[in-house]
């Protein structure tokens, strides 16, 4: 029979303090009952017989007298079985779809354990998302963590959904999607649910919803529950799991609130000093283990406050994740979808997951050269804003053409358009062929000879004749 403690000695924001508690363990769960229901909490500090408890559902309505607290004797655990597929849970892992509790095969600690680096399989299999900018320039690899850095008003949700729709059935293997909403509105959660239903994959989706009006402290648990479910599916049932969680910035704000009410010394912008370690404990749970066939791939979405990539949340995220997909409000304003800002975007695992054995032999060359040329386009644009486009040299004008074509044909594609990797790479070559051959300095001459076709590119994109003539003069 577990002991119950009546009353509390202090309430401070999401934290309550109890005195004279015996045999409490660090990180242990507690159950706090009041006249109108029970809430869950977690022990975050112990000093002798005094314990500090973080209450997930908030402390509204708690008083120092009317509560009974019971120690549960274990850390936060999630009941797991294959039944979780197709179900909807709250941010703390309670079913909220009215279908009753999950009959658990096993229960797992939501904090997880670090995966031993020697037991990891280095991710190499690329995921074909059917989106040119991602497939060619920042290839998504199975087992990777690749966040979307976005801003308010940008179509990050559509992009995430498009990736899921087009990437899901790539090779018919067992797949599942774990979706976690942290502090997003009901509409966003609904959008994801309806599109999953339309795509006919809802029976393979597990949803954890902590919406913007739900208790904030529960938000700290939400991604942990989601990742625990994902690890269970991947490592116990050999499924390829794609985890999408949005919005990481809200999660970090919840963490900040918790930290400040605990009276901790703040780091940058008031976020706790351990924000890096805390985010790492989420992101590092992506990967492939040698002991199982499944994999956990993560696409976290975060909105950059004020579109500032140096804000602590995107900054620390970038240091942990294996690259990022950055969205750009200017491209979005030009009506380009998906508005991927390719220069600050990156996939670190791409180099080992592309090439002859995976995509095509010339993939790395095309990607490198597109990056280099598009970077030069930015320099030319900067110059244009000073001296005007008319004053540009002939080559620089060609770069301006290239830039426009790249944005309108390569980046821009429909929400339902699914391009194969061949189509994407060929399109890349056509765009590069707009430029004079000498400008393509990242590519071996042999590869160039095979793919470079200037005249075809001019025809394909309806460029002005005088450019051809100029080109003929320069290159004979």
């Amino acid at each position, binding site marked *: 029979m577990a002991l119950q403690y009546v009353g509390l000695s202090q309430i401070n924001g999401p934290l309550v303090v109890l005195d004279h508690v015996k045999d409490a363990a*660090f990180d242990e769960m507690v159950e706090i009952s009041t006249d109108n229901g029970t809430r869950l909490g977690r022990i975050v*500090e112990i000093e002798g017989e005094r314990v500090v408890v973080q209450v997930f559902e908030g402390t509204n309505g708690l008083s120092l007298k009317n509560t009974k607290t019971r120690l549960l004797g274990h850390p936060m655990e999630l009941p797991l079985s294959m039944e979780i597929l197709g179900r909807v849970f709250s941010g703390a892992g309670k079913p909220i779809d009215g279908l009753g509790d999950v009959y658990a095969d096993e229960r797992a600690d939501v904090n997880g354990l670090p995966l031993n680096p020697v037991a990891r399989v280095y991710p190499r299999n690329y995921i074909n998302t059917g989106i040119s900018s991602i497939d060619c320039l920042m290839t998504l690899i199975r087992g990777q963590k690749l966040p979307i850095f976005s801003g308010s008003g940008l179509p990050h949700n559509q992009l995430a959904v498009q990736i899921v729709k087009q990437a899901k059935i790539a090779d018919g293997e067992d797949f599942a999607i774990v979706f976690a909403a942290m502090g997003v509105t009901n509409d966003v959660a609904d959008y994801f649910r309806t599109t999953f239903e339309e795509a006919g994959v809802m029976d393979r989706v597990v949803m954890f919803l902590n919406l913007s009006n739900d208790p904030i402290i529960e938000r700290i648990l939400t991604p942990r529950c989601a990742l625990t479910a994902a690890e269970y599916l991947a490592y116990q049932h050999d499924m390829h799991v794609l985890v999408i969680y949005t919005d990481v910035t809200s999660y970090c704000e919840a963490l900040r609130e918790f930290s400040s009410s605990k009276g901790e010394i703040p780091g940058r912008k008031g976020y706790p000093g351990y924000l890096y370690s805390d985010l790492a404990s989420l992101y590092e749970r992506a990967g492939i283990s040698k002991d199982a066939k499944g994999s956990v791939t993560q696409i976290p979405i975060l909105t950059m406050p004020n579109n500032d990539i140096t804000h602590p949340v995107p900054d620390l995220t970038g240091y942990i994740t294996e690259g990022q997909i950055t969205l750009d409000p200017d491209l979005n304003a030009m009506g380009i979808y998906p508005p991927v800002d390719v220069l600050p975007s990156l996939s670190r695992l791409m180099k080992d997951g592309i090439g002859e054995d995976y995509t095509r032999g010339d993939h790395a060359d095309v990607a490198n050269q597109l990056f280099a040329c598009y970077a030069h386009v930015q320099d030319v644009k900067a110059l244009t804003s000073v001296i005007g486009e008319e004053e540009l040299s002939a080559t620089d004008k060609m770069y301006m053409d290239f830039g426009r074509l790249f944005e309108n044909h390569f980046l821009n594609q429909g929400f339902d358009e699914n391009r194969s990797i061949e189509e994407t790479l060929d399109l890349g070559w056509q765009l590069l062929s707009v430029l004079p051959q000498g400008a393509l300095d990242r590519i071996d001459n042999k590869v160039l000879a095979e793919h470079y076709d200037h005249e075809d590119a001019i025809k394909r994109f309806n460029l002005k004749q005088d450019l051809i003539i100029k080109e003929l003069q320069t290159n004979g």
Partner: protein
Amino acid sequence: MSENVIYSINGPVVKVKGITDFSMMEMVYVGHKHLMGEVISMNSQTTTIQVYESTTNLKPGEPVLGTGQPISVTLGPGILRNIFDGIERPLEEMAKANGAFIPVGSNVASLDGNKLWEVTLCVKPGQKVSGGDIYATVPETALITHKCMVPPMISGTIKSVKTDGQYTIDEVVATITQDNGEDYDLTLVQKWPIKTPRPVQKRLPISMPLVTGQRVIDTLFPIAKGGTAAIPGGFGTGKTMTQHQLAKWCDADIIVYVGCGERGNEMTQVLEEFRELIDPKSNKPLIDRTVLIANTSNMPVAAREASIYTGVTLAEYYRDMGYHVAIMADSTSRWAEALREISGRLEEMPAEEGFPAYLPSRLSQFYERAGYMDNLNGTKGSVTIIGAVSPQGSDFSEPVTQNTKRFVRTFWALDKALAYARHYFAINWNLSYSEYINDIARWYNKFVSPTFMRHRQQLVAILAEETKLNEIVQLMGSDVLPDDQKLTIEIARVIRVGYLQQNAFHKDDTYVPLDKQLKMMEVILYLKKQCEAVIAEGRPIRTVVETGIFDDVVKMKYDVPNDQLELFDDYYHRIDAALASID
């Protein structure tokens, strides 16, 4: 003696009430699961311990056991080819014992106690020995002979010695009668506290470069054997790639690679790649000279703090054998953040940006453990420290970068703009510097060519000139420049794209010997000289560009294989022919 029990728990910080018999920095076992911890502060009321493992489920009242010694590493054969966590626990053994995930309280011996090593004894009974003297050698890997040394504080006369043969690391192979009359048994291993530098006779002046085969480093900003370097850069600028390239190709005898608070997949990649990659100098796998320390970002934060010290202690141990050791620490910012996190839990008064006030002194203590040393046993060896720095918000004015800058002498500043254009290594030539140029110029003159440093100076001058000209170009366009200045910009482009930029995935370009670097510089400077002559004759620079000779020279890094340097002679003819073709 009363038993010490846990009083309070806050994350990785545990306190014990009352006066304890622990000493500062003593290693302790916390709780029933024997979590490893270290005493970090004491007063008459409480003793504070930082725990190197997750404290979930720990309860007040559980025992804390002292070990009587500071946190130490085990030094002996079997370190190389291995991968350890931050407190020298072998990850392979842990995976065998506990499966894919790392549980708490896993106590696995650091080195394999069952493996038999082929030991050659090199002392005789009656011989006088003192700290650092080599008493046995073991072929540890195909590349490296491990030398077992008398621990630094021990000296005396050899009493008995076993014959050569196969022994495990814990078997006694010799016994010393110390000067105070007590016997001391020598096995193949010794222990050393990680926060104490291993003693040496004296520091030697720095004189040799650490040759890396990377042009921008060897030519523009070289690092010396026994030197220190920092690689600061925001995320995605290629810190880790740079560290990997250096670990693969630099001419140190031993590499210690510390992944401190970084990605798990990256460590797996290093492990896989180094097993496959063949060292061009010895034709043996690179792993034979490498030890990895992996404390990924999701492993406990206190062990992250220890991992840097563990790494540098292993490096010093191999230095004592007379080897040149390079240690790559990726990244020191994570280590500084671990300091901050623990300092915050101790409620210490923060200095800049929440970092503790002792951050600069900790950084300097770490970097000062580098150096070219005269060892106790008369051999000479060096420890070179190359630390990556991850400045928050890519802002080099933040505390870790600024304080690191004070203690390192080579600074390779990685630049976001270069990385966005996929110019790798994204080392910015305006912000970077090396203070070793003068120390090692003599070595370059003697072993490469007396002209190397002069050519380097010319390259630096052209790049500096280009930076100035670019300010004008950005305001008014390049058309306003006179032709000789346009030539400078074109030549600078050849240097940037054809020389500084290096392709880590190209079979020849990934490692470029100094001879080839010299020849490439010669060709570029010859091109400059010849073009200057053409321009002086009044021909427009456009005509020279249109011959395509610049693009030809840019691609010589790919077109000339590393073992056919005679092909460079052809470039002089091609330059002449191209310029002659201008009518």
